[in-house]
């Protein structure tokens, strides 16, 4: 199991290392905890408030872990034009998967689109979207 100290050591020679560190912590632990923020702040000679300010600014970093699997559904203009809003009630009618809005996956001519982890899905319709949710 990787530790915060390992992650800090890996990035110690980088300029402006905070975001790469937070990405690694988020990836390893599923969130950035108060304790890890304290440890990172100490190592980088920052205040805890500064680290907290960065963690809370960016959508990618969570302060608490999400227990459910997460699907990111693109709800930007191009996917709206292709009918993503009609899929939203399907997401709302279940609670097993956490469905989050994301603004643009760059798949704008083949939407509606979604991302699970690093995997991307396009041309979603009712059936495909339900199947995708059920398979998670």
């Amino acid at each position, binding site marked *: 199991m990787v530790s915060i100290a390992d992650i800090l050591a890996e990035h110690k020679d980088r300029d402006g290392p905070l975001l*790469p560190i937070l990405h690694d912590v988020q990836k390893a632990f599923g969130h950035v905890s108060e304790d890890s923020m304290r440890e990172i702040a100490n190592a980088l000679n920052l205040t805890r408030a500064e680290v907290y300010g960065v963690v809370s600014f960016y959508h990618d970093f969570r302060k608490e872990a999400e227990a459910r699997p997460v699907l990111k559904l693109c709800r930007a203009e191009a996917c709206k*034009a292709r009918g993503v809003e009609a899929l939203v009630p399907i997401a709302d009618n279940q609670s097993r998967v956490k469905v989050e809005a994301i*603004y643009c996956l*760059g798949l704008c001519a083949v939407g509606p689109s979604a991302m699970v982890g690093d995997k991307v899905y396009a041309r979603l319709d009712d059936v495909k979207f339900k199947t995708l949710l059920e398979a998670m």
Partner: protein
Amino acid sequence: MTVRISDDAVAIACGADEVAAAFLAAGVAVERVSSWGMQWLEPLVDIDGIGYGPVSVDQVPDIINGKATSLGRIAEHTFIVNQSRLTFARAGKTRPLSLDDYYASEGWLGLAKAREMGAQATIDTVMASGLRGRGGAGFPAGIKWQTVARADADQKYIVCNADEGDSATFADRMVMEGDPFLLIEGMAIAGFAVGADKGYVYIRSEYPQAIAKMEAAIKLSAYLVAPFVVEVRVGAGAYVCGEETSLLNSLEGKRGEVRAKPPLPALEGLFGKPTIVNNVLTLAAVPWILTHGGDAYAAYGAGRSKGTMPIQIAGNVKHGGLYEVAFGITLAELVNDIGGGTASGRPVRCVQVGGPLGAYIPPTQFHLPLDYEAFAAADALVGHAGITVFDDTVDMAQMARFAMEFCAVESCGKCTPCRLGSTRGVETLDQIIAGKNVEENLALIADLSETMKFGSLCALGGFTPYPVMSAIKHFPEDFR
């Protein structure tokens, strides 16, 4: 027989990996290449130049047995033949991470030319090309480079803005996933020209395939661009980091808050050092310019918008994808002729050009040529040249509300007009949609838009009024 299938994110999202696996399972060799950019045909299968698509796994046996109907020669497809692909010359043709393919298709010639002619001549060539920043602002690249070159400092940086967050834009993603060495070469030329030995590519986290390709390409080509060093930095889901000063703060490990200008990043940028911040498409245009000359590039285009623009046709459109062409093409050609109208078959109601901060444009203005000045004169913006097509089922009051909501979600919080104005905008539009004091509230929105437009620090708050006010102006019936 070898089949060529794209491995870019669109192809994969449409099932290209499964199709490739089916060919492999049938004993057919598969080469993964970049995408031609005809996204309605993905997964597109290319066998000796003949195309099939969109292909599903169950069609694979018929294709192998020669029983499937083909699209004909891909390179002669009507979508492809009328393009002027300078930046996307390799699209569909090369393996993204093959140095051999890159060398065989004019790769590294621009960098060699730059090193041969020297730094100042390189800047002069970019100046002569008339290349303007492709991220949206349209600032002349040559002038920015000259400013950084003349700045006196012990360290300078090249920062590539690959935080392509606008809806309907995917050209940056296609460069990084399909032709990553091109971007590295462009950055190396910039570094050589201004005396910077370090470059950062700031890629949004929503693009994992692009991140992986760029990291692999940087390793493979490190010895070719040395002493210039390139590093990938990954964004963290903040749209505002596409704004250059916010991006610099993010790279430094801070909240992605916008900085007041001056000082210009060209003089005090990353870590306070002179920095070129250029969009992916700006840097990716540079190798062609160096190889073929600034005048050859400037021969394309119209007025003060020189060269070609990789236009992205998206949304509810029949033939969506990447269309690189000289500036000056009209929206009517792009939407009706090339795009083929809507995918739903219903009438086109409007397009939004330039992402979530771009104006909504009705068909009565489709005569507008794609040109920075012509768009500005019509209260619209070219931006990153993404076009979202909407059919007649769109509710423009909801789209105006979404523009304000998006601004509220993504505001960095530094300036008041953007931070508070966007939320008040959502509330006021909600009242209008509910039919409460419509005329008074519309007047309030117009006033609020003025304040946001002129009082915001950056384009997020400053340009959100464009989609809102254009929706109200061109589609008043949706608000009353």
